[in-house]
């Protein structure tokens, strides 16, 4: 049986067969597909080339904006507030990393 995730690595054009929703996640899992979540960091996407946008964003390098669930994702570093929030989040993450390292 074909894996529901094989399409990730295949470029499909318009008119390709309908794909299973990655939002459904792994069979039997209540969690969304982690690769779907990963698309939020990818800012390259060709909307016309792929029938399924979030997954397509993983393999496209065409330079367009990333989309997820039909919406456009922006790079947080394009705005000053996004940059500051990234820095604060990174500070919090690194703080707990350093705290977990034994003296």
């Amino acid at each position, binding site marked *: 049986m074909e894996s529901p995730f094989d399409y990730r690595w295949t470029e499909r054009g318009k008119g390709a067969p309908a794909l299973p929703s990655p939002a459904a996640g792994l069979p039997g899992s209540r969690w969304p597909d982690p690769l779907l979540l990963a698309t939020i960091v990818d800012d390259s996407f060709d909307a016309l080339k792929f029938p399924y946008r979030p997954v397509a964003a993983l393999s496209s390098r065409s330079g367009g904006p990333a989309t997820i669930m039909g919406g456009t994702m922006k*790079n947080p*570093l*394009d705005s*000053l507030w996004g*940059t*500051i929030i*990234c*820095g*604060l989040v*990174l*500070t919090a993450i*690194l*703080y707990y*990393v*350093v*705290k977990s*390292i034994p*003296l």
Partner: protein
Amino acid sequence: MDYVPALARWLHFMAGVMWIGLLYYFNFVQVAALKAATADGTNAGIVKHVAPRALLFFRWSAVVTWLAGAALLGNQFVDAFTLRHGMAGIGVGAWIGTIMLFNVWALIWPNQQKILGMKPATDEEKAKARRVAFLASRTNTALSIPLLFFMAGGWSHRAVFGL
């Protein structure tokens, strides 16, 4: 022998203020100013006189900051970069500073040379260079936040933060 770390700390602070100060100038002031100046055709002065000077002090203050920081770490340099013997906090700061120095010399400066016309480049190459330099600069701005936390409060007030 105490003169070396004392002078290194002083130099580290002065050069660091210049480096991060110019980084914040680029990100909080110049990017928006240049956009507005380009729109009304008054950007030539910034591009010709301000940006090259700011970049000169920016990239060399980055080097001085790193070298003074390395001198300040002294024989704890290896412990800091390997995050051992209670040096994890300052070590993370040192790693972030090193990544930022790399961004300055390997990404920001070579691409700014193309943007400012110091190196020959086509319009397409300039557009790409503009994006790479911008994102590298914004990355450094984001990294400066944890950098200053670990370099300043995270080190001198380790007990307060439980580090």
